């Protein structure tokens, strides 16, 4: 099975992704992003969403962890690093200890 990629983002920067064969969709609010995501979820295997929207939709995005596809991941857009936060929260809930970021905090 072959899959397609899409990106949902706010700025014009998402257009750059078109050069790599990724379908780009520009939306201007988290609510719109959510609607777009709902329509895209069936057709695309990998969906990138910019960090800001990911943070706002985090509760909605949880449900996609139930099945292998689609894969929805945040891409950094210069505004914080939500991907790392996700990683950290996964680590904390699963292991209960910090084995990655420990040194930075102290």
């Amino acid at each position: 099975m072959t899959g397609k990629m899409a990106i949902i983002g706010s700025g014009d920067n998402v257009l750059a992704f078109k050069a790599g064969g990724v379908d780009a969709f520009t939306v201007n609010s988290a609510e719109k992003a959510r609607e777009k995501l709902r329509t895209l979820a069936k057709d695309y295997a990998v969906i990138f969403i910019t960090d800001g929207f990911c943070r706002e939709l985090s509760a909605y995005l949880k449900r996609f962890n139930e099945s292998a596809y689609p894969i929805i991941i945040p891409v950094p857009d210069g505004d914080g690093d939500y991907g790392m936060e996700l990683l950290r929260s996964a680590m904390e809930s699963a292991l209960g200890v910090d084995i990655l970021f420990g040194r930075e905090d102290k």
Partner: protein
Amino acid sequence: MARLNVNPTRMELKKLKQRLSTAKRGHKLLKDKSDEMIRRFSVMIKENKRLREQAKAMLADALKEFSSARALMGEAETENAFNMPSTSLNLELDTESIMNVIVPKISVTATKRSGMPYSYANVTSEADYSVKKITEAISVLVELAVVEKKVQMLAEEIVRNKRRVNALEYVMIPQLEETIKYINSKLGENERGALTRLMKVKSMINERKD
């Protein structure tokens, strides 16, 4: 710990002992599973972190090129340059099973077109670099996507598994043990009661004979 609401009979005792041994075996198995999942998880999150840092750096670089390309070219030329994929990335979707968690597995094959998909006349060199860099960044991003999904799914499974282990360890097993103890003592008491009754009856019969 509350004991189960069962009749103190030998039949129940036998059944409960069976259940207790199953529960203990299940507990051990789940605990082993949890250990192995945690081992794999800790390897994977390191990989995830490394990839994310790499992707972030590559993307920032590519986007920088992109904005300078946009600044130097007209609207229409930019559209042209970026709308056609120069390298079409083909995602071969598959799934694999890590400790019985079905996770995605993607193999990326890039079919590269010779040269760039636009005329060089109107397009600046910044755009060329940017197109090349963004393609590279995307293949890293896909790799990251797979690892990250695995990490998220495994994390959830670990939490779920932990809950099961705890339920067995702190609820199910103590409950069964307590109930078995209760039935044992109840049966013992019944037996002693029957014995004393027999002794009493025997002594009464002996007295009557005399």
